């Protein structure tokens, strides 16, 4: 069965991409499956300078999900290009850089650094980090900032496709989707995490040192699917669905409402080969949906009365 998908100039073997922050730099998983089999890999969020991230504790398990407040710990974009990218199978699999910045200018600078890198297939612009108040949150929730950040990245990215990753913590996701499209985004990806919190009643302290964190995992799948559905109706550019995807069926739900590809995040923690297993299982799920290929399934949602 042909599982290929094409969008924004990318050709992926299948629609399964690993989500930023949940698959490291890919190399951590090379003993659990052949990285070349993945549709793509979005690496951990990259900033201009190295970042140590937030204080510990940074993660907590919640019913069917988890909260994280990693705070974009990363070695910086230069170290990624020097130490990690050369080890990745970038000729065979789309390696997508995830850009984290706290200002429009920094986003532009990051795009400039990555624009000439042969091994980078596309840029994913994280305008939605809920963990860090300075910059991240403001960006993701303000349509004007989304447009500006997108424009800044588009101006400096060379010929790399630009995917803007949206936060769900907004009143109207369609407005944010259109804001990114207006800025020239080649595609959207969504959702990033929902802002959440947990308290340890024994100590009466927030479990996360950062107090609040991002909720991800199967718990949020219904919210993610709704957001992707709304975004797909709001814009003309391709959409990558993210949020709680743990099985091939889950992936196909997102494609049915209009996503072109999907990213698997928290499910990589169920077992480290989960993304590979989802790919293995795609043909079976496609038969269940009686879908000939991905293009036929995409956006084929049958609304009541149709």
């Amino acid at each position, binding site marked *: 069965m042909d599982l290929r998908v094409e969008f924004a100039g990318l050709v992926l073997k299948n629609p399964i991409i690993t989500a930023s*922050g949940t698959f490291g730099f890919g190399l*951590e998983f090379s003993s659990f499956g052949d990285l070349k089999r993945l549709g793509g890999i979005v690496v951990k969020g990259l900033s201009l300078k190295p970042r140590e991230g937030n204080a510990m504790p940074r*993660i*907590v398990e919640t019913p*069917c999900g988890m909260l994280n407040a990693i705070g974009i710990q990363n070695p910086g974009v230069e170290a990624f290009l020097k130490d990690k990218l050369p080890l990745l199978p970038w000729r065979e699999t789309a390696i997508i850089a995830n850009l984290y910045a706290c200002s429009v200018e920094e986003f532009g600078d990051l795009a400039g650094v990555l624009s000439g890198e042969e091994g980078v297939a596309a840029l994913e612009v994280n305008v939605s980090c809920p963990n860090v108040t300075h910059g991240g949150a403001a960006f993701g929730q303000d349509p004007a900032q989304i447009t500006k950040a997108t424009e800044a990245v588009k101006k400096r990215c060379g010929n790399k496709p630009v995917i803007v990753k949206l936060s769900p913590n907004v009143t109207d996701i369609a407005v944010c989707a259109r804001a990114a499209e207006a800025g020239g985004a080649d595609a959207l990806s969504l959702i990033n995490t929902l802002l959440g919190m947990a308290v340890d009643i024994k100590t009466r302290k927030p479990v996360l040192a950062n107090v609040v964190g991002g909720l991800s995992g199967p718990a949020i799948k219904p919210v993610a699917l709704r957001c992707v559905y709304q975004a797909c109706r709001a814009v003309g550019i391709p959409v990558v669905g993210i949020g709680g995807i743990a099985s091939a069926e889950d992936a196909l739900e997102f494609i049915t409402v209009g996503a072109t590809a999907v990213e698997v995040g*928290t499910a990589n*923690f169920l*077992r480290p080969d989960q993304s590979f297993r989802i790919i293995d299982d795609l043909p079976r799920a496609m038969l269940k949906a009686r879908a000939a290929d991905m293009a036929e399934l995409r956006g084929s949602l049958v609304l009541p009365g149709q």
Partner: protein
Amino acid sequence: MVVRNCREVKVQSVRFLGTWDEASDFVELTLENPGWESYRPGQFAMLRPKHWGLELPWGRPFSISRLDAETLTVFFQVIGRGTSRLARLNPGDEVVVWGPLGNGFSAPPETPTLLLAGGMGIAPFRGYIENHPTPEFLRLFFAHRVPLANYPYLAMAEKVRAEAMQEHTPEDLPRIIERIRELMDENHGGIALACGPTPFMRTIQEHAVAGGLRAELSLEKSMACGVGACLGCVCKNGEGKHVQVCARGPVFQADAVQL
């Protein structure tokens, strides 16, 4: 006993074989050996029963307590949602296992080696003793709260020089700390390996650093991936940089980690 490099780590689904005492909160859980030929004591495994579904999305990390040709054994205490479910497995239930993970303890031959175990921290030393090339150089000190019978201590004490101290009341603590310091001083020139609760480890770290003694500490943090990818389990290294306990540890040189 070779250090497995990361590329050899596999996810396997293996059958649960049984536990030592079904009624106890201290569970010695035995699984089929997932096809591992060797491991380095101090390394750990992530365990996730196949039928867990989605409510608990993370596996649970446990020190590898024993490994033989047929079986993999971990030793844990029931403390929360995951461990209470693990304690209720039925024979034949499938468990997804990934490992051996992390770096493990040093095992220099013919070196006086002091094993300092606090509570469940005894788990990795079971296999350490069994696999050591020169066990006659090992000495075990075990600090515990609940009665000794709950732990695999006696089996271990048959093989190496061992002593145990129970903390009945908080007043016992200074005596235990004193004894740890004495033993560490006596072991000067050798190496001390420690696993246990944070205050226990802090005592050992302080004494090692102050006295310039060689010591290794095995850390515990909540883990999601176990393979260095999520950055949820970090500690600060000597330079104050965040490093993953799962991938760069769980064993650290006493002077190269902040507790």
